[in-house]
């Protein structure tokens, strides 16, 4: 490496890291293999997104992985009951790094209208979520926009910068991924459900 007078010797090295990040992130972003986890009506919109009219293969999601072992992005499309919580967590844990999660629709993101005893109030209490797609259900354009946002997020990651690196997020010793207080806080009723008494 030749040192240019008056310039930092790290210049070329930093650029090289950027080049590696660019190459790695581009290949990751442009060949995401989705693992569909469809539980409700959002899955219908997801299928429409995958089918020929909207065709998310255009964005590199050509191959849908129906095994978590060969998937990059978990798309939870639909409501998640508590009974399925250990299932989706196990699927997430079985996916190899790096992995991303898209929460599709109101129910997956917040519990939606199902503010009741059986439903997880947002899958982010179970697995870490990268992109939330709002809608009930979201149109295919909405999901595609979420996928493009995920591309953007992946391009911002770095192998060398610890703060921008993607790390495994295991459960803690209580088997939770966030503190109980946080779970209670994000599960608070909002919108119309605030009018529903807890005892009713």
């Amino acid at each position: 490496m030749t040192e240019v007078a008056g310039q930092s010797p790290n210049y070329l090295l930093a650029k090289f890291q950027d080049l590696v990040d660019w190459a790695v992130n581009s290949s990751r972003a442009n060949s995401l293999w989705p693992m569909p986890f469809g539980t409700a009506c959002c899955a219908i919109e997801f299928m429409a997104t995958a089918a020929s009219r909207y065709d998310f293969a255009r964005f590199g999601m050509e191959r849908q992985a129906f095994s978590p072992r060969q998937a990059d992005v978990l798309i939870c499309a639909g409501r998640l009951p508590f009974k399925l919580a250990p299932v989706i967590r196990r699927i997430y844990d079985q996916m190899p790094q790096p992995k991303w999660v898209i929460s599709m629709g109101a129910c997956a993101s917040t519990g939606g209208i199902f503010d009741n005893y059986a439903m997880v109030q947002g899958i982010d209490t179970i697995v870490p979520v990268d992109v939330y797609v709002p809608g009930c259900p979201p149109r295919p354009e909405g999901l595609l926009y979420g996928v493009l946002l995920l591309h953007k997020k992946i391009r911002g990651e770095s192998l060398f910068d610890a703060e921008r690196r993607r790390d495994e997020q295991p459960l803690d010793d209580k088997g939770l991924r966030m503190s109980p207080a946080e779970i209670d806080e994000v599960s608070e009723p909002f919108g119309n459900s605030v009018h529903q008494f807890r005892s009713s």
Partner: protein
Amino acid sequence: MIPGALREEVARDGEPIVFVARDRLLEAMTWLKETPGQQFDYLVDVTAVEFRDRERPLQLVYFLRSLTRKADLRVKVELPASDQLAVDSVWSLWHGADWLEREVYDMFGITFRGHPDLRRILMWETYAEGFPLRKDFPLRGRFSRAEQVRQALNANPEAHYSLDELSIADAWGDLPDDMRERLKRGERGVVPE
């Protein structure tokens, strides 16, 4: 005349309803199934109703159909909530009642005497918050959300099944060790009180 019949009503859709004494339910059902001219050979559904008026008893509803006679009948049993919620199982007459009665047990806490395998069916077997469709059950459940998430994440999804249920006897060699051990011990989960 149906044994144990207390009174009759007609539903709004014209279907006849018969109220039967709770002690004589099995007798009445046997009679309805086996008597020529009745032949209710098909149990469509079993469900229960609890009214907002706490004074009114719970109703256990059996939907019967006669495939040969093309006739329908609803049989109801009234169960006062103050009393023990238990009736005889009709599983011996219609094996299809197995899962239907399990669902009623799961949602309302009504127990069926003589049922071969009375455990929860929709909620997981270690579910401890009560019976969700009862009127005294809060819609969001009894535990905090954090506790619900903790219990859900610590649940073992495979623990709910028995060997016969999954028909996995052939796949015995492929099963994970812990599952094999549980099945060998005959464990099928614990039915909560």
